[in-house]
Every structure is written in C-alpha cells, then in structure tokens.
C-alpha cells in the first residue's frame, strides 16, 4: 500500500471515530439538570470516572426507576444512570449498589443507620405556597410515602410535612406521591458534594 493512501485512510478512519465518539453539544440547554443518581452514588464530580456504564443497576432495580442518559447532557453523562422521582422514585432496596462492579454506587446494607449514613441523593424541599396542608387542607400524603417516616419527614399541624434536611436521603418517594401539580415537595439533587478522590489521595 502506498504511504499516501495509507495516511489518507488513517485520517479518514480517525475522523470517523472522533465524529462518532463526540456527541453534538447544545442539547444540554434543553435537558433538565434536576436528576438524582441511584442511592450510594459517588459524588457527581467523580461519577463519570467510576461508572463503567454496564447498566446492571437498572437491570436489578425492582421498581424500574433507573434510566440512562443519551447524549443530551454531554459525553461524560452518556449511558450513566439517573432517576427522575416524578416518573419513578427510589424505594431504597439497595440492590443497585450491591450489583455495581465499581465504586460508582457503593454497596450499602438495607438498614436504617447504614442508609442514613451512606445515601445522599438529594434533599426534599417543601413549597409552602403549594402544599395543601400548609394551605389548611389536611393532606399528609408525602409523610405517609416517606420510607424514613418520622425521621426524614415529621408531620406537623394538619399533617404539614417538616423535612429534616439532615436525615432526608432524597429517595424522592414524597415527590412521586405528591398530589399537587406542580409538586409541593421536590427533591433537590445533591450534586455539589465535593469529590472524595482528592481527600483519599
């Protein structure tokens, strides 16, 4: 083979590979950034380097709450798992961390103390102007949906939800259950957690 032909083919093959590997930008503007990672997830800053995109977390999820990004948020999030609680929230069965082959999702036993200590998906926040209980109509649905009842959410007068930011793990079952539209209680993802890698290194 002539060197020139070879170089041309090498270049064209490389160009084809690069154009396939790098998705088009710009879609990030329209895609929602308000998503949760599955329970036990590493800090967002480390996640892309740890997750090998095997998809097993969703495969074992009995509640089908885990979905995967396409290219809409860029290549770093491509094929990584996410949860949008309004669609389907996490029931804290902790199977995904158990099956995860990497440290992207840590294995956490399904016990109250371990979950309180290890799971930080986000924190629920109540919009009192939307919440029925705060408007004088006793509701209490989110309080009853919470798997950490009386720990993460306590019920006040007229079953007004009172979230303990310290104990809420952000599973999203309250947001999923809220009968208001838009939801009066929503989980704000905990994506600002600092990378643990520098601390460890």
């Amino acid at each position, binding site marked *: 083979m002539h060197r020139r032909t070879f170089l041309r083919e090498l270049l064209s*093959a490389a160009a084809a*590979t690069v154009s396939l590997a790098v*998705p088009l930008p710009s879609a990030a503007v329209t895609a929602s950034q308000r998503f949760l990672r599955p329970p036990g997830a590493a800090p967002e800053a480390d996640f892309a*380097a*740890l997750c*090998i995109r095997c*998809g097993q977390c969703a495969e074992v999820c009995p*509640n089908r709450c885990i979905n995967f990004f396409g290219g809409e948020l860029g290549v770093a999030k491509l094929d990584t798992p996410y949860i949008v609680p309004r669609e389907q929230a996490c029931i804290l069965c902790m199977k995904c961390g158990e099956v995860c082959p990497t440290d992207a999702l840590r294995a956490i036993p399904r016990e109250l103390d371990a979950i309180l200590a290890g799971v930080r998906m986000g924190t629920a926040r109540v919009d009192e102007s939307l919440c029925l209980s705060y408007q004088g109509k006793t509701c209490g649905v989110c309080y009853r949906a919470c798997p950490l009842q009386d720990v993460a959410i306590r019920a006040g007068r007229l079953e007004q939800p009172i979230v303990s930011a310290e104990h809420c793990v952000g599973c999203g079952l309250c947001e999923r259950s809220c009968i208001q539209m838009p939801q009066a209680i929503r989980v704000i993802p905990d994506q600002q957690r600092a990378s643990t890698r520098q601390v460890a290194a």
Partner: protein
Amino acid sequence: MTTPSRTFLLRRHLNKLRWLSLGLVFAMLLLLPMLSVYQNYAAAHAYDLLSADEKAFYDLMHGLTAPFTADPAEDLDAIKGTTWAGRFFGYKIGDPLSAVGQLAAGGALYWPLLFAVLIPTLASLLFGRFFCGWICPASFLYELNTGLGVWLDRIGLRPGRRRLDRRLKYLVLAVGLGLSAATGTVLFAAIYPPAVVGRELYYAIALNGFGTGAVFFAATVLFDLLVARRGFCRYLCAGGALYSLLGRYRLLRIQRVPASCNDCTKCNVACEFGLDPMRDGFGQECNNCTACIAACPTDALEFRITWHDQPYQGPGHLGRRYRRQPGGDTPERPADGGEG
C-alpha cells in the same frame, strides 16, 4: 494423501463449537433483559394488570424459570449484566478494558473490579484474543455481516476489501486512554462494540428502545461492509488491541504442519482477521477462532502449546512449489503476505 484421522474430524468441528458459544452468549444477552422485565412484573404483582401480549410473555418467562426458582424477583438476580460487566452467582466478572478504562479515567482502580477482570485477563494471557472469536456478542453480528457481504458479492455488489494498518487499533487504545484521562470519563464504554451491543440490547428490550450506541454500532457494521471486511475488529477496536497485547505470549496457538500443507490458500481466505496462516503468519492478532482449521482440506493446521509462532517454514510439502524444488526454497516469508 493422508487419511483423515479421528482427531482431524474433531478439530474440524471446533469452529461449529465456536458458533455455538457465540450464539449462546448472544442468546443470553437477549434473555437477561427479558428476565429483568419479568422480574419487575413479578415484584409488582402485576399479572392481572398486564395486557394479553404481556401475559403471554410473562407465562413464557415463568415457564422457563419455574423449574429453577420459586421467587423470581429475588433469585433471578443471580445472573445479571453483559460481557462488559456481569454477575454470575455472586462472582462479578468484567472486561479487562473496563478496568483499564477506569484506571485511565480516575487515576485509581477500584480493587474489587480487579478481581472481576482477573479470570478474563488470565484466560487472555493463555489463549490470546479468544474473547473476540468465541464470546464477543459484536463479533457474532460482525461475522454474520461478513456472510451478508458474501451474499452481496454474489449479486454483484462488491463489499469493501481495503486493508489498513492493523496497528491503528493500538493508536485507538492509546488515544482512548489519553482522552479518558483528560475528560475523567470511561470513554471506552461508548466505543467498544461488545459493551455497546450488550447495553443497547438491554435498552431495546427492557427500557425505552435503542440509544445513541446503536447508531455507533450501525456505523461500524457499515464500515465493515463498505470499507474493510471485519475492519473494526482488525483495525479500530480498543478492546481487541488490549487482548492482542495480553495474548502476545499466549500459550495456545494454531500452527501449520508443512508436511500436510498443499498451499491452497483456503485458510487465508477463511481468516476473518486477514492473517496469513498459510505462511505461518499468525501473530498476536490471532484469536484462535479455528476458522482456518475448519477450512483446511489436508489437516495441516493444529493447536500446539507453545509461547511463540513458527517462522515461515517454507511451502507446503503437498504443494506444487515444494514438489518442483524440494528443500530448495529459502524459508523466508514473501514480503506481500501477512500485512494489513
């Protein structure tokens, strides 16, 4: 002529055994997502809510798994995942490229992942690129694609027959590692066909349909068809490059027996990786797929336990060239063979 011996017959069937293995792996990748859906239905006690089609699907899955488990939602978690990363009765098993990719992306390796890739890595040290020929679900589709190319050729549409430099894939591996480190992302997951195929089959069957990876995979299939036969595996696959490096000093090799060879070139035509078995040109790229053994009409290729290839042993003793000039041929591989 030597009469075909019994071992000859057994050896010939290795290629069929390989197709069986490829087919089983691919069938598992189709079955596991279905089982996952079935588990979801079972966990949700959803049978009465299902449509007629879904009920038929549920009944089928129930029939398949009922002999083995009374609690599908829990017990079927024992086998999960794909060839990229999976779980098999408590043992997690993964592709060596996933560990290498994670190491490059994060600068650190999660050590249980090292355990997961241990067996595949050791097997590659012994058997070379066997994953590519015997297990890889993308290989299964690519080889069928080669067959499609043969059919297209018959009706006058000639598939691509270009030869690039097979060292290109080591460049892809190196650049991939560099980009992974620069972006802090395990990029190989997006450009490594077996990972893509396993994941996309799962997306298609159990989630919302094919994702971006399917577009990538379709492009590689077209590349194979229009540019070079098995071009992606030969020239561009980063995992293939890693397996080739691991298998450089593999212990199980196919070697030629010149005394039985008649220089018919059938092995070279059969070789999916464009190697040169007829002139002892195997190298680290050989994936022990046994297609050349199955194609050989004179039983001149066999497995041997050795850590290096034979240098060119001269023309086959049953061939015309050797009979004209017995022993007089300089044992040097012709310059045109073996490359690309």
